[in-house]
Structures are given as C-alpha cells and as structure tokens.
C-alpha cells in the first residue's frame, strides 16, 4: 500500500511571463486547500538554482512524497525537476507538472481573471494526478559493444570509422557492390570544386583496411529483432544469410535523386533535357563540347504541392504500408513540398565548372528562390563574376520548352522582375531535381520500427534536440536518410550518430524508459488484441495470458486503450491517473458553479 500522499506545490512566476497575467499568489493560496496538499509556495523562477533548492528543502522539511510544479511545459523542464526531486530522495516519477505558461498565461494574456481560474484548474488536475502517481524504475540492460551501420556512403563510412577507431566492432553493410553511395557518382563538389573522389576514396580505403570493420557489400537486411543493447539482425547477400548481434544500429542508407516523370519539362522527350546528376556524368566524362547556351531550371518537382486532401482522407482506413504508398503516389503526381537544400549550390557549381571550361557558353539559371547560405554566398558571387546569368521567373508560370525545326531547344519563361516573356534558344536544358526518400528506407523503417515523416524521410526523435536519434532507443540516423544534406552535413551527422551510439556502447549499460505497459493477469483473457495493435511486438500471448516484454514497449498505451478487459496498466499514464485529472476538473468545476 502506498503511503498517504503529501503533495508539495511550487508555482512559478517565470518573471512576468506567468506572474504578469496569472495571479500567482492567489493560485498558491488556492492550492493549499486542495486535497493532500501539504505545502505550497511560489517563486520568481522555480527552475533557478534558488527555486530548485527550495523544492529540495521543502521535500525534506515537510516530508513531501509528491511534487507538483506549475510553470512551463514538461516537454522542456520535466527532466530538470525530476532530477531535482530525485536529488532530494524522491522517486523521479512522483512528480507532475501543470503547464500554466505555454498553455495558459501566454495564450490568455488579455484575460487575467480567466487565466487565473484556468491556472487553478490546471494545478488542481496536476495535484489529482500526482496523488495517484507511483514510483517507477527504469530497467537497466546490457549493451553489446558492436554496431551495425546500414549504408556505406559518406555518412555511413564516417560513422563506421568513428566507432571502429574507438575500439568498437562495426558491421558495415552496403546494398551496392561498390562503396561511396551518392557522392561517388558526382563529379566535383561545391564549394571547393574538389573531385568527389578526394572525399570518397580515403574513406573507402580506411574502412576496407580497418581491423574493427567487417564490410559486407551486395548485402541487405532481411530481418531485425531485439532492442537497445541487443539487436539481432539477419543480413542477406548472394553468399547466403548471416546473423549479427549488435548493441546499436546506425541507418545511413541515403536518398535518391528525383527522376522527373517523362514529359515534365519535356524530360525523356527531348534527349537534351537532362537532370543535374546526368550533367555531372557528362562533365565527368568530358563530353559536353562547347555549347552556345545551357539553361538550368531550379526546384523541378520540389517545393510544390502538398499532400492532396483526398490522399489524406484515404489514410485512416489503410495500414501504414498502404499509407506510405499513397504518400509516395501523391508526391509523384504533385511534387515534393520541401526544399532539397543542395540543388541551388549544385546548379551554381555546375555553372561555374562550365564557365571555367568554356567561358563563351552562356549559362542561365532560372529560379524562383535562390538559397545560398554562409560562405556559399561567395560561391554565388563567383558565379556572377563568371557571368552565369540568374533569372528569376514567375513561380506560377513554369518555363515552357519547345524544339525548333533546327532541333534547338527553346525555353520560354516569364521574368519576375520585368513581368515580360523571355526566350532562350539553348543546346541543353538541365533540371535541378530534389533528393527524395528511397523506397528501401521504408522497408528499413518498418523492419526497425522507425517512424517516417510525411515527406517520406525517416523521422528524428526530435527535430531540434535529438537530430540523429530515432524514436527507437539504440538506433540512430545519419546522412540524407533523414532529409537532404550536402557532404559536410552528412559527415557531421555520421560523426554525431557514431558519438551517440558510442555513449551507449562505452557505458556498457543503459537505462530504458519506465513508462511501459504491464498486464494484470487476473482479468486478462488472452484475446490477443494487444498483440494486434502494438507497433513494436511487445505483447505476446503465453499460456492464454498476455505478457508484455517491457524492453520492447515504447509506452504509447495503444494496448491499454484497446484491452476489452482493462487488464493492461499503463505506467504513469494509467486509467485512474487520467480519469483523476478529468474528474478534478469537471466535478470540482460543477461544484464551483453551484457556489461551493
């Protein structure tokens, strides 16, 4: 039996952020009267050193066993406060937050009275949940000191080398026969105009000769199971299957250059309409000759089209695979809404290369937005100095391409500055197409249970704070698999993913999430609905009862909601705990209305 709750409530002014709208002293006085509240105070900044010290002091002085902080959002500050209560000897899960800033004072700043009433409600709800919280422990698991890197492009090879140099065993698998990924197929790289081989060759040499790297080419994933610290992956190649047991996985299987459909800007119709990637190949082979003019068109199939509402409507009825197929189909038809980040620089680079080779060739870049950042601005200036011409065309009127009887190409565009129609007779039309997700990624993602974002790339655990982590502990992403990146960025993400994986492998042990599901065996009838809905395969029916393997559980709670016998207990987000919040809000609210 849990001891009687003794809740401490700490309300933050957040300077004037909360205190300037919500009457904090009034909320503090109010919370003192709530059930189980032993102590309540307010401070200017609860997250300051003084504020945290006050929490610890009060826990000791008033023998508090639950803590509620009413301040900002748990998404940023819960870890800090949990740590604080833990330092004072409390289990970190005996803590709850009321979000009275982001979801109250900031959005109701012209209604201080109502905001104060809402803050009271939010505190009351948090106290109700806190009194029902239970201590949780984060299970500890061993981490195998070996890693699997999927994809031997620049990012994957960088990651593999980084871990191998730290003494970890690395299995590096590549689906192609050769190493080097997308970069190997390129000619020169911006902004140094270095040959791509200068980047790729040393990496290939190093991974091939490293004693800690086991390299497997023409190899793909067949099956994956396990969890952080202990993944079992079956790899398949023409030589047969092989099983590896690793502690971490880095997914670095890259992206694809978008291949325009036949007919888009006459691609596939006129043979001198090509993509930048194809131009790279021509330049590499030295086959360009001395053209009079080359016209490049930016954002072909990029930054256009949202997923159509009809495609979205169809999602709910379908499973994930069907959904992804629809996303891809919608993208194919309407183009990709994101900026691919590298195409502007790539076009400028090829423009510079052509100008240096044959200065008399007129290079025209048709764009709607040109995005060059940091020192790349100088690169753009270099192109201008070399007289590469940049023409901004009207976005709504895409350039039209026809062929003259003399089989020259004719590009008609609408100049955004003058609003006039401009015409270019040209030898080549080069389409700058975006990087797009590979279908293979989808398969990897499904096998490894990594979520995919609506743009089709693998999704990071947090866009800002955890850019190389995935939602699956122990699996990291590097390179263009999570979105378009250039070479330096791919190397950075490769190093970053390796560093993240090495932390786990270096520590040999990891604590996993405590918020997991638990089966109460008595009511369980072994119907298997939990098994059916779980995206992670955590529940398993054994001897007519469901058993949830904690280590596989990610804590979404879908099984608990689906269970017809309510036999699944969600730790920290239990039925009673959620209902307590609802009840604290509504029942008390009704009483208030009749004048209690």
């Amino acid at each position, binding site marked *: 039996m849990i001891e009687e709750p003794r809740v401490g409530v700490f309300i933050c002014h957040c300077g004037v952020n909360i205190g300037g709208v919500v009457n904090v002293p009034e909320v503090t006085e109010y919370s003192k009267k709530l059930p189980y509240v032993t102590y309540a105070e307010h401070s200017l900044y609860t997250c300051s050193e003084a504020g945290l010290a006050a929490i610890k002091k009060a826990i000791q002085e008033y023998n508090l066993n639950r803590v509620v902080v009413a301040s900002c959002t748990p998404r940023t500050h819960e870890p800090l406060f949990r740590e604080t209560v833990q330092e004072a000897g409390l289990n970190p899960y005996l803590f709850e937050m009321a979000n009275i800033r982001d*979801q109250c004072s900031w959005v109701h700043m012209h209604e201080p009275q109502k905001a104060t009433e809402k803050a009271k409600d939010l505190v009351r709800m948090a106290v109700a949940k806190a009194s029902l919280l239970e201590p949780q422990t984060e299970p500890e698991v061993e981490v195998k000191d070996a890693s699997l890197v999927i994809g031997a492009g620049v990012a994957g090879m960088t990651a593999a080398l980084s871990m191998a140099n730290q003494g970890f065993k690395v299995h590096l698998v590549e689906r192609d026969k050769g190493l080097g990924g997308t970069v190997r197929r390129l000619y020169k790289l911006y902004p140094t105009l270095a040959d791509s081989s200068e980047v790729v060759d040393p990496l290939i040499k190093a991974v091939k000769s490293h004693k800690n790297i086991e390299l497997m080419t023409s190899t793909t994933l067949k099956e994956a199971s396990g969890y952080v610290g202990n993944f079992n992956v079956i790899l398949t190649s023409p030589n047969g299957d092989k099983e590896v047991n690793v502690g971490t996985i880095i997914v670095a299987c890259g992206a694809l250059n978008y291949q325009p459909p036949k007919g888009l800007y006459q691609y596939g119709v006129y043979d001198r309409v090509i993509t930048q990637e194809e131009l790279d190949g021509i330049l590499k082979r030295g086959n360009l000759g001395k053209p009079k003019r080359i016209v490049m068109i930016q954002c072909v199939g990029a930054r256009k089209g949202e997923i159509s509402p009809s495609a979205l409507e169809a999602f709910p009825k379908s499973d994930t695979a069907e959904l992804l197929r629809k996303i891809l189909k919608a993208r194919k038809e309407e183009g990709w809404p994101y900026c691919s980040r590298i195409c502007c620089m790539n076009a400028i680079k090829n423009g510079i290369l052509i100008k240096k080779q044959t200065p008399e060739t007129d290079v025209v870049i048709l764009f709607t937005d040109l995005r060059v950042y940091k020192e790349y601005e100088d690169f753009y200036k270099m192109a201008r100095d070399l007289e590469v011409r940049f023409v901004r065309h009207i976005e709504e009127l895409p350039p039209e391409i026809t062929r003259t009887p003399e089989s020259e190409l004719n590009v008609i565009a609408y100049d955004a500055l003058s609003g006039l129609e401009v015409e270019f007779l040209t030898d080549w039309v080069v389409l700058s197409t975006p990087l797009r997700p590979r279908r293979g990624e989808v398969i990897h993602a499904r096998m490894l249970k990594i979520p995919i974002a609506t743009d089709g790339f693998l999704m990071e655990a947090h866009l800002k704070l955890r850019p190389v982590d995935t*939602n699956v502990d122990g699996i990291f992403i590097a390179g263009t698999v999570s979105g378009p990146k250039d070479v330096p960025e791919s190397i950075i993400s490769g190093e970053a993913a390796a560093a993240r994986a090495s932390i786990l492998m270096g520590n040999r042990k990891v604590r996993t999430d405590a918020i997991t599901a638990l089966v109460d065996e008595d009511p369980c009838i072994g119907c298997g609905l939990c098994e059916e809905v779980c995206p992670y395969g955590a529940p398993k029916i054994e001897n007519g009862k469901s058993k949830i393997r904690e280590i596989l559980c990610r804590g979404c709670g879908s099984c608990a909601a689906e269970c017809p016998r309510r036999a699944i207990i969600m730790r920290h987000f239990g039925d009673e705990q959620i209902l307590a919040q609802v009840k604290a809000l509504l029942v008390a609210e009704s009483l208030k209305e*009749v004048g209690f």
Partner: protein
Amino acid sequence: MTKEIEEEKRVEEEFEPLIVAFCCNWCSYAGADLAGTSRFEYPPNIRIIRVMCTGRIDSTLVLEALRMGADGVLVAGCHPGDCHYQKGNFIMEKRFSYIIKAVDSIGIEPERVRLEWVSASEGGKFAALVREMTQQMKQLGPSPFRLTYNPK
C-alpha cells in the same frame, strides 16, 4: 417565442463551455506549447491533459469526460504518417468512429467530440481549432450531462 429566442441567445453569450482536450505529447501538446510561444491567443475554455499518444485514449476516457459534464472533448494527435509510435493515431482514428456512435446513442451531439491532427509546428492551427470549437460549443449550449448549469 421571441422571448425564448432572446433567452437562448443570452445563454449562448454568457455560457462558458468547458472543453477537455487529450493531446499527444509529441505533436499536439507541442503544437499547443507553440501556440503559447507564438502568443496566439485563444479562449480559456480548454484544459489539456497530456498523454503519450492518442492511441492511449479509449472510449471510456472520452465517455467518462462527457458523463462528468464536459461540454466538449477534443482528442488531438499527430498527422497521419507522423505518429511517434508509427500508428497510434490510426488506432485512435479507427476507434473514434465507434466512439462517435456511442456518443450519439446516449443522446449527446456527436459534434461535441472531435478528433483532430495538429503537428508540433502548427501552433496557429491549434489556436484556431480551440477558437472554433469553443464557438461551436457555445452554440450547442451546455452539455445535457453537465451536473449543474445555472444561468443567472
């Protein structure tokens, strides 16, 4: 008759509905936070309960909230394809069609219960949604299950 209409109008104006929102930690709760960071104002009629995923929200939680007198219940999660847990929002979507039927069958307007997708970057959408839903609940008037609603 006119008196009745006037009375109804007055109730509508004075009535402050209470909306319970279940928001998933990764998208909609973050979207609500972003509305705050961006200072997008919305009516103070909503109280957000954080859950990890909309897949956690079962019919009981929604129906209990209504039974206890919530004027509206909002379940908000990640856009299709963006679920942090791959498919929790689909599970909820499927379940939601049953919930709506259950709500209807106990004599509550199905409009009182909504399932919406709000991403972490859609602070504006969240604020607009709360504005719209509050207005809608005002028009619907107090929930028949509201224990005591006593317009002065």
